[in-house]
């Protein structure tokens, strides 16, 4: 199966709550939402952020074609304590979009066409 980076399948926004960052991952085409549900699992995301976060939760929002991830312990203390440039987890969103997932060949072809166009 061809691999595709999430940036071509979804957009995202992230924010913070204490030492937890959240990433809302939204399918660019609602038809791709089931693919995200299947491939972007809690375990897969935990592996992606290995060493950067202490735990991951996932919630499904089929009404918005979106998944919400909670990345616990992601902000080095969070809020005002954190020394990180991204103390408020604003760009964990794009960090998740680096993840590569397997997609059916038809989706890969469709993406190639739109990206070429």
């Amino acid at each position, binding site marked *: 199966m061809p691999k595709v980076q999430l940036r071509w399948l979804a957009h995202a926004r992230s924010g913070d709550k204490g030492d937890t960052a959240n990433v809302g991952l939204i399918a660019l085409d609602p038809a791709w939402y089931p693919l995200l549900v299947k491939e972007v699992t809690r375990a897969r995301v935990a592996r992606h952020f290995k060493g950067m976060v202490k735990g991951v939760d996932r919630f499904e929002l089929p009404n918005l074609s979106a998944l*919400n991830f909670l990345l616990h312990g992601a902000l080095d203390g969070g809020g005002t304590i954190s020394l990180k440039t991204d103390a408020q987890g604003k760009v964990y969103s794009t960090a998740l979009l680096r993840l590569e997932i397997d997609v059916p060949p038809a989706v890969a072809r469709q993406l190639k066409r739109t990206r070429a166009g």
Partner: protein
Amino acid sequence: MTDRIVRVAAGQGFWGDWLEAPVRQVQGGPIDYLMMDYLAEVTMSIMQKQKSRDPRYGYARDFVPLMERILPDIAAKGIKVTSNAGGVNPRACAEAVREAARTLGLSERVKIALVSGDDILPRLDELLAKGHALRDLDTGRPLTDIRDKVLSANAYLGMAPMVEALRRGAQVVITGRVTDTGLTLGPLFHEFGWDPQDWDKVAAGTVAGHIIECGAQSSGGNLLRDWRKVKGLANPGFPIVEARADGSFTVTKHPGTGGVVNLASVTEQLVYEMGDPHTYITPDGIADFTSIQLKAAGRDRVRVSGIRGRPRTDMLKVSIAYFYGYKAVGTLVYSWPEAYDKARAADRILRRRLDDLGLRFEQVLTEYVGVDATHGPLSGPPDPEAPEVQLRVGVRGPDKAAVERFTREIAPLVLTGPPSVTGFAGGRPEVQEVVAYWPALIDRTEIEPHVRVEVLDA
């Protein structure tokens, strides 16, 4: 009338947001309410510190000159303003706005109200003595662990006092720690006369408030999808909710403004700072974000409906800020060739010097801006031809003298470390006090009897 529309416009998404936004919301087209959210989690502690230095302060002071600018328009058009700009001193804030109204000759026409009772700092020991542990929601530690370091403590109030102030004829309602969403819920419940136990309506108003509480973040600002296609952000139209009595609403913005309101902009804001989407808890009720239905409804219009809610809980959230320690962040920029290697060498030298000086910190964090500062190990291998790399070193600890000494160890690296270094013109880094956030819960029966609504005399 079931087809009646109430327009609530966002004017500020945080303390420090674009100052022109509220003025353009008032002048750019019809609105009924201007909602301005000023309070982030630790904002109250900054305000508490200002108030302890001068009892006339302790609120968002730029709110007053802003009101001066828009008072003539809101008086003429009958626009109402809801804001939590009052911080830890809503009375001083309301009186300052009244003074501005008097100067403009408008104090007879524009009634100003204030909401208080959220500030529990003076009652903290009494509450602890009564057995309220005020445990940290994240760590479970009791507040007694840090009691002597507490700088501010405020309960999050819901919409009830806002509704009461509006019912009593207030045109400008200034509050302390009322929830961001309450600033929108209050107007909707007042206008439509909804039952506060109609949980679907509470949830609908909560979602409306959530969509506009961060200002332009739902109308094209910080929008990732197709960001190049978002035009006119030099003059972004801040979001407006057009609410209907059935609990559905449309998100839009004034014509002729920049940015965009579409499914992508609204969805990105909906997932912002989201926890469990089934259970978005506010003082007024619980909203289920998995019930939200969005529909494109023409240019810069998104229709929102179907929202379901559940009853409110018996607890209110409390936001406590406490003194934690000190921190400082120093930066230097290294240029090509081998910029990253030079920056890493400088970091090793710096750390060795901190050790040799016997300085102890809770944490020393090094990031390389341009290499891995935002995405860490996911960033991939560093580019050996990178034109420049910024070394960014932060320290944090309880010992002010150690952090102070750290700030004096950055500039010397320019003449005593690796070559081709620049970007130190800003001078020594600043030592900052770290104020940390302690979220807790308290029974609402301890708070609600203390909440007061007061309409000021002209």
